[in-house]
């Protein structure tokens, strides 16, 4: 750059050989094309800004109880896990009881800002049904939305404190189950069909007026047609650990249901073609699968039985068994006092379901309708043919007892006692209670044996023997020495004897051998003689005949 203090005066010092530039006509445009650049900038900048502004949707206010985990500018609003907005501001309400969360929704979901839309905060929560919102541990809480269907728009909402359990428009069907108790069920507990999760518990209500507990379940699409009018629901909660007369039974649906509880359902066999039950159909929630799938019991018939024995091991709910078929359950037990015999019999009341006998009952009653008189008549017939109630031990280990209705031979004649309205089935003593007196008798006899005395005598005898042995000891030692000596000499004599008698060269041995040979011979001769005498007994009288000539010997043949 030229120095401003010493400007070079124009025209001086021109180099002699300055070239001639090429000269062309300049075009006359005064405005440069460069002004296109700001125009492009305007277009680009405006399009960028408009694009961004277009994406911004409506601004809504949501009221929550607490702003825990909600950060302005960061917390997202998600619908089906898609980000549809962002929290812009968090402030306290005027009365400082609630927090106001300003949310900017995306343009695409601006139709979500309507009256029946629900908002809630998703935070990690650990419930009976498992851990939910686990991802929020890392991402922080977010606001969940359930879009409403209304067309009336709204800008101010009151947020839910917990996520709703059925989202609007979620495909599926709700049903209502009447339940005796809730068990370990909770909102969110799964509903299983063939051990596959097909739905969940979405709520339960206890009606204090009617004392009725109902459980609302939601069967998710596409499984809702599985629930027909013939579906049977039962509580598959946890481990169904039953300790009863049949022993220890362990039933579990799935590991998850063991931990979180659950409901299972099944269709009755033969009801496959039935149409699906409409939403809101009411079902009964049975305690277990067996009860759920059992044929309908019909009305119960209350019977009573008086046992003249302890009913220890018999509990309410214990089965009443008829030839192995569970006919009913024990309802109550009551101690009576029999003034005449001065004893305390036990009255057991049980509900039995004669319909469970099905064909037998039909055959005996010719298909009379269930209930009342017909069943009593049926029971009467059975008692007349020898049916008796008996307490039996179902399980020796736990000594749980059950009531067996059985035909017992050799029992005194008895009839169904119908006094005070409730039929009273005659009883016989239980197997164990029969055995008990016999065992007691054996024990009593054993008790009579004077074990003490015998023991004492034995002890004194033994001590006397010990004393005698101690007194004897010096002489005994001497005697032992004598015995030893004697034994030594006996051994010597025996050796000698051995040499003289048993050695093969010993004279005795040889003589004996000879004698034995002689004896053998003599015996042979005797045998020959006896044979001959047998054949020719006449020789005893006539003497031996001369031997016949050789040629004649063949004759008798």
């Amino acid at each position, binding site marked *: 750059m030229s120095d401003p203090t010493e400007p070079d005066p124009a025209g001086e010092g021109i180099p002699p050989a300055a*070239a001639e530039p090429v000269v062309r006509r300049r075009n006359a445009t005064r405005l440069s094309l*460069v002004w296109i650049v700001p125009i492009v900038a305007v277009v680009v900048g405006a399009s960028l800004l408009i694009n961004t502004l277009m994406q911004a949707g409506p601004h809504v206010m949501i009221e929550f109880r607490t702003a825990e985990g909600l950060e302005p500018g960061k917390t997202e609003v998600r619908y089906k896990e898609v980000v549809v907005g962002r929290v812009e501001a968090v402030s306290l309400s005027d009365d400082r009881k609630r927090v106001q969360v300003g949310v900017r929704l995306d343009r695409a979901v601006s139709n979500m800002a309507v009256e029946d839309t629900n908002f809630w905060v998703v935070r990690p929560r650990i419930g009976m049904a498992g851990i939910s919102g686990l991802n929020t541990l890392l991402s922080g809480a977010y606001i969940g939305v359930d879009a409403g269907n209304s067309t009336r728009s709204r800008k101010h909402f009151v947020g839910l404190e917990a996520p709703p359990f059925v989202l609007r428009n979620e495909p599926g069907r709700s049903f209502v189950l009447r339940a005796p108790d809730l068990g370990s069920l909770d909102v969110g507990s799964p509903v299983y069909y063939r051990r596959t999760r097909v739905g969940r518990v979405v709520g339960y209500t206890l009606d204090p007026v009617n004392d009725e507990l109902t459980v609302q379940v939601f069967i998710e699409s596409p499984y809702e047609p599985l629930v027909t009018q013939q579906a049977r629901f039962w509580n598959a909660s946890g481990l169904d650990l039953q300790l009863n007369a049949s022993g220890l039974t362990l039933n579990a649906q799935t590991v998850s249901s063991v931990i979180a509880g659950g409901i299972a359902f099944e269709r009755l066999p033969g009801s496959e073609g039935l149409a699906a039950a409409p939403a809101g159909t009411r079902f009964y929630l049975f305690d277990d699968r067996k009860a759920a799938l059992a044929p309908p019991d019909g009305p119960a018939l209350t019977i009573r039985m008086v046992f003249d024995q302890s009913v220890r091991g018999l509990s309410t709910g214990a089965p009443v068994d008829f030839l192995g078929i569970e006919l009913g359950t024990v309802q109550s037990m009551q101690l009576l006092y029999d003034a005449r015999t001065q004893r305390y019999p036990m009255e057991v009341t049980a509900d039995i379901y004669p319909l469970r006998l099905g064909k037998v009952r039909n055959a005996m009653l010719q298909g009379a309708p269930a209930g009342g008189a017909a069943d009593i008549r049926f029971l009467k017939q059975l008692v007349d043919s020898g049916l008796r109630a008996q307490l039996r031990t179902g399980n020796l280990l736990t000594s749980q007892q059950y009531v067996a209705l059985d035909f017992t031979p050799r029992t005194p004649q008895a009839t169904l006692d119908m006094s005070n309205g409730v039929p009273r089935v005659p009883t016989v003593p239980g197997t164990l209670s029969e055995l008990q007196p016999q065992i007691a008798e054996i024990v009593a006899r054993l008790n009579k044996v004077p074990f003490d005395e015998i023991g004492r005598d034995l002890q004194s005898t033994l001590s006397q023997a010990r004393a005698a042995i101690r007194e004897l000891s010096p002489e005994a030692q001497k005697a032992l020495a004598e015995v030893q000596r004697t034994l030594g000499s006996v051994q010597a004599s025996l050796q000698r004897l051995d040499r003289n008698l048993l050695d093969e060269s010993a004279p005795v041995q040889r003589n004996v051998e000879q004698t034995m040979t002689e004896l053998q011979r003599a015996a042979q001769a005797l045998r020959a003689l006896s044979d001959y005498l047998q054949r020719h007994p006449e020789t005893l009288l006539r003497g031996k005949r001369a031997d016949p000539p050789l040629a004649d010997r063949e004759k008798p043949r």
Partner: protein
Amino acid sequence: MTALYGCECCGLVSAAPAGDAQVQLRCPRCAHPLHDEKPHSLQKTWAYLAASVLLYIPANALPVMTTSNLFRDTSHTIASGIAELWASDSWGLAIIVFVASIAVPLLKIGTLALLAWSVQYAPGWRRFERARLYRIVEGVGHWSMLDVYVVVLLAGIVQFGRLANVHPEPGLLAFAAVVVLTMLAARSFDPRLIWREPDEPTP
């Protein structure tokens, strides 16, 4: 008066014939255009400055970068990035980013506007200082591209799929355009205009 022109391309000095001003001169050796000053210098400077001012708005209003991890996408504008750095006690970094991204472009635009304005309306005013100012503006030049470099580098390096991801946003485009346009404005400004006497005709 004969005017001498040094060819900007090959260095040949040629003497133009006096007379008609409406001609275009070209170097006899390499055909590079010869001129007193850069043609339309002020117009170009004003145009580029206008464009850069216009794009400066979206460059600061829109996010320049989105960092996403497994669960969340976070968009950053330049200002929010500086605020975040400041909040996390990285004052040094915050200052550097502020200077490079906000102060320098603004100062450049302001300085060039001042230079262009003074050529037209206050030609005799503090020429020496204005010339120095121009040298500074040209020298600072591309350092404002720092942000763009950082984002582009991050976007290139941090690509771990769903785990962590950085991707540039439209704001970065606008910001880069602002920086480039201010550089173009600085280049198209002809410092010789500073030294033009008021009675000389403007190009």
